[in-house]
């Protein structure tokens, strides 16, 4: 029997399930990006303080980033089984390269004369970092968070293969049953989620950087 391409009645009948997977997807995005930032931030500060650390740290993050997604999940299974951690740990490691690099480059991008002035005004090192350098690095750091977030939203779907997956489960469902409706719903929602997250972070940047807006 020929199914219709998109079945609204399926959507209406499975709203609860769709919401649950969407929520799951959001958690599997926010937690890795958040953890990734918590790890990358001190690594970035250390790289600024001791510049020799930067290359090796970036190298390690780069190697982690280059491991195929599925392989990393499979490597995790013996340690963490099919739990959420199996998804979260690799997703977190993937964000490190982008977040570390953007945080360091953002801090390095502060003009030297601004730094010189701050030093000469009598800022202590820590205060200068938090009051002057970090605020000025916000646009580059947020740019990193945006890429990391959108990437992670895409990767989450793959974790459906190890029993996690958020919206990825809808892809699996549609694929296994040769029934396109869940696939389309999952696709549309994950694109919408990526766009919303990107715009949301852009909004955060707008709020944090009033000095970058055009003169009113």
């Amino acid at each position, binding site marked *: 029997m020929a199914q219709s391409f998109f079945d609204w009645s399926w959507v209406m009948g499975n709203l609860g399930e769709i919401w649950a997977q969407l929520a799951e997807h959001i958690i599997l995005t926010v937690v890795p990006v958040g953890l990734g930032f918590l790890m990358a931030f001190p690594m970035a500060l250390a790289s600024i303080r001791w510049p020799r650390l930067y290359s090796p740290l970036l190298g390690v993050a780069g190697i982690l980033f280059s491991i195929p997604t599925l392989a990393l999940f499979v490597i995790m299974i013996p340690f963490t089984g099919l739990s959420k951690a199996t998804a979260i740990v690799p997703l977190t490691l993937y964000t490190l390269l982008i977040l570390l690099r953007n945080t360091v480059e953002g801090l390095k991008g502060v003009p030297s*004369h601004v730094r010189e002035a701050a030093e000469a005004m009598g800022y202590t090192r820590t205060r200068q970092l938090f009051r002057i350098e970090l605020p000025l690095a916000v646009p580059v750091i947020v740019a990193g968070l945006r890429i990391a977030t959108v990437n992670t939203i895409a990767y989450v779907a793959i974790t459906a293969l190890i029993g996690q997956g958020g919206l990825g489960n809808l892809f699996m469902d549609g694929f296994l049953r040769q029934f396109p409706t869940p696939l389309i719903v999952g696709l549309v929602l994950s694109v919408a989620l990526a766009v919303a997250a990107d715009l949301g972070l852009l909004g955060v940047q707008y709020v944090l950087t009033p000095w970058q807006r055009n003169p009113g």
Partner: protein
Amino acid sequence: MITFESVTKRYADGTVAADEVSFEVPEGELVVLVGPSGCGKTTALRMVNRMIEPTDGRITVNGEDAASVPAPRLRRDMGYVIQQVGLFPHLTIADNVATVPSLIGWDKDRTRERVEELIDTVGLSQEVANRYPRQLSGGQQQRVGVARALAADPPIMLMDEPFGAVDPIVRDLLQEEFLRLQRELKKTIIFVTHDIDEAMKMGDRVAIFNVGGILEQYSTPTDLLAEPANDFVVDFLGAERNLKRLALIPVSAVEHETGPLVSRNDSSDHAREAARESGTDWVIVTDAENQVEGWVFINELDGQQTVGGAEVQPFEAFVTEDESLRAALDVMVESPLNVAVRVDGDGRYEGVVTHNTLTGELK
């Protein structure tokens, strides 16, 4: 007071940026460090607030060894202005100016009042307070830079080419305004420039540095021009040294001659007598209020009973006491009488400045 005691700065690669430099910046004076690039003038400046540490020797600030004071504390007593200004792009103008007050913990009201006062002091309108640096012109940013340096009323100011990045007209204006401000504030200032004319204009004293961190001469601008220590200094001071000297001496600093002074109603004989006494062939004519009417050649009085009978020629230009002798010279070469007539602010006659006055001053 800031003293350099045999201060040497040698870098690991062997470059010497300061070679046993010794000099003293008296309290309340503006001292300019000037020299070609690579002479270590900026290094010398940055050793004062310990942005650079000397290899040898000692710098004292009000008798205290700078090296014994924690750098952030030392710096909060020293206003700092640089060519690129270095305003904090993410802070409003008000917050930029408030940098040091907030570092040293002033309360909000006191800080706000001080910021308002300083925005006035440096000649900006209060409207800029809530703008961000990039919304201001280069000249305005430079003024904010000065306001920020003055915020906590530091006794010392360190200025590195502070007016180097603005166009010549704005630079001139900022220099004038800063000198006027300094006459009130009497800060102890070290000012770095590569421009000898700026050095001569701004400095109570000028230190001329040579490549390799050598202090060639340290003196007042007038003494430098009158007695340059060596060929390097002569070269660095540039051409027209005598004109530059004249530019530094105000008309008020020299004796002026009374000159042959008559009124229209005086007799021609009286005028001839006045001219003879002064050794001139002309007289200057003033009215009852002592306003200058002009001048008359003695031989034009022939056949006239009174001075007023002859045609009185007007002067084209005068000098006042706050102008320089160089301005007087300029007036002099234009005048057919070869003198510059000195008047007060209301145009009343005070006397004449002659060629002899100038050569006497330059001896």
